[in-house]
């Protein structure tokens, strides 16, 4: 599999646009339809946090600090070559960080309305998605037709479908894949044929494991659902700790797992509206009330037969941190299984402390 960095540079050399994104709310289809590459920018490394803290307050979530640290030190290889950053008004920290990035690179911010059940909120979001189409047309000096959008929708649905198929292998019992292995299958550039091929191979290999009885965890290993903040590659310490304690993470209700894969974009009807609809329904904790998350947790808990739910909150992620109260109640009272919240950051220094908690939970199951 070719390196993401090489792929992006190669595309750039051939005159393709590069658009940096940070969040699962970004409608990647629009970027693909503009003949540009949507690329997830770096933000999953503890080492870029100290430089970020020379500008940002230290009591901000590690994801924001690490992302900004990459920009500040010019260490993100994608950031150097991008034409535009597309961002959304999700949490306050990110929203204001985008204003700082805008000092250095062109940034387009979509105003994400946050009352998911209201028509007016959706109408506004749709208008924002429409404005992004215009902005991309101007940036890359081309017209995005509805047919371009439909083709991009099919491509992204195919990619999401394969990722979903891979993550749904977590339903197997005994587990054929560890949560750590599943965390490694995401690719930072969307809509790449080579990535789809790699996913195909990954899925076939996992199925072969099942046929040959090569399981990823012992029979009877506790099955854990991870929910909460995303765990991009490089920030999977909690998944590692859970699996070192003898349990297996079978379901990931996070933006780095199943959360953005649950819904596809409708391939019929007005393509722009279908795109806006899919992204608007992402059950992120910045939405209010975020009832979609408990519905998804309930469904995944049943389908993946999980024994406990562990909620990851990156330090100073206020929305997930506060929402954890509701998730705690929901998991214990409605689902009747144990729940544990873990608040931590990107550093490795608390691994042993995390192990005490996780091992206790695992021994209790």
């Amino acid at each position, binding site marked *: 599999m070719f390196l993401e960095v090489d792929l992006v540079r190669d595309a750039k050399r051939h005159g393709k646009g590069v658009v940096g994104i940070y969040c699962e709310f970004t409608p990647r289809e629009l970027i693909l339809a503009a003949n540009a590459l949507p690329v997830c920018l770096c933000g999953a490394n503890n080492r870029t946090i100290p430089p970020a803290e020379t500008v940002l307050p230290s009591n901000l979530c590690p994801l924001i600090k690490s992302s900004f640290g990459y920009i500040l030190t010019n260490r993100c290889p994608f950031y150097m070559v991008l034409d535009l950053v597309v961002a959304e008004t999700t949490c306050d920290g990110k929203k204001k960080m985008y204003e700082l990035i805008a000092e250095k690179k062109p940034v387009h911010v979509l105003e994400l309305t946050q009352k998911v059940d209201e028509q007016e909120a959706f109408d506004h979001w749709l208008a924002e998605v429409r404005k992004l189409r215009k902005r991309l047309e101007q940036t890359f000096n081309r017209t995005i037709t509805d047919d371009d959008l439909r083709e991009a929708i099919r491509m992204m649905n195919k990619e999401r479908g394969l990722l979903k198929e891979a993550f749904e292998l977590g339903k197997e019992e005994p587990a054929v894949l560890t949560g750590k292995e599943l965390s490694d299958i995401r690719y930072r550039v969307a809509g790449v044929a080579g990535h789809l091929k790699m996913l195909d191979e990954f899925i076939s290999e996992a199925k072969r494991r099942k046929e040959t009885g090569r399981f990823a965890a012992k029979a009877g290993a506790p099955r854990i659902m991870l929910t909460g903040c995303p765990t991009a590659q490089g920030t999977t310490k909690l998944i590692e700790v859970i699996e070192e304690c003898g349990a297996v993470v079978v379901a990931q209700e996070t933006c780095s797992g199943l959360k953005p894969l649950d819904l596809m974009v409708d391939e019929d009807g007005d393509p722009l509206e279908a795109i806006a609809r899919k992204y608007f329904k992402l059950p992120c904790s910045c939405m209010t009330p975020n009832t979609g998350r408990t519905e998804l947790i309930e469904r995944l808990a049943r389908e993946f037969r999980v024994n406990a739910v562990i909620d990851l909150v990156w330090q100073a992620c206020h929305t997930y941190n506060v929402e954890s109260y509701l998730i705690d109640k929901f998991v214990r009272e409605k689902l009747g299984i144990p729940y544990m919240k873990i*608040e*931590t950051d990107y550093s490795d*220094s*608390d691994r*042993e*402390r995390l*192990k*005490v*908690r996780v*091992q*206790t939970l695992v*021994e*209790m199951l």
Partner: protein
Amino acid sequence: MLTCGVDIGSRSIEIVLFDGAAVVETTVANSGSSPVENAKKAFSDTLSSAGVRREEVAKVVATGYGRNYFKEADTVSSEILCHAKGVSYLFPTACTVIDIGGQDSKMISLDTNGRVSNFVMNDRCAAGTGKFIEMVSLMLDVPLDSMGVVTEVSNEVCEISSMCAVFAESEIIGLTQSGTAVDVVLRGVFRSVAKRTLAMSGKVGLTADVVFTGGVARNAGVVRAIEHETGLKLLVPPEPQITGALGAAIIAASKA
């Protein structure tokens, strides 16, 4: 049948030799800079002072921070489960455990069978733990063992409002320099430890009987401060710091 519990904590090591019904021998040692080595020595010391050969010990369970590195152990268990086990052996009516050790504080709720039903542990922060009290002991030049007696003399207390051990230190310096008496400062420190610990009770509840374990439970000043804040009488084992090792030894007996 003999079993052994080994609790390798951040500040101290406790060893309990158990005969299936009662404690045979206990050892307490410092963790120091090589806790696993020191645990090995404490383990063999315990055996020799009890006059027991290694092969007579049917099972060894390790707990505490060093648990995964102690090669003499047959198996490991989390200290939360070990403390719960030790407490329900000592006090069968216990419903809640407050455990304050060298760098952790924990609250554990027990079901009617003495099993852990819920627990909460402090985040990565020294305030409200044994290490913080040790630091205050050095700053104010009051030995750890005398702290309880020193604070018995009155009820006058001062406010320590910092949530962080480092900032609390500067706050204490400010108080002593402005002439606040040492016992008043100490009562303020103990009250802040009590408040920090009890902040965790929102998650697990505080149902009597409440048992206080861990090295900090030896400090009568902290016991009084928690009792004052909760209005509850705390049950404290005679050797509160060995509770985890005792629980480990009992778990070992049930697995042997």
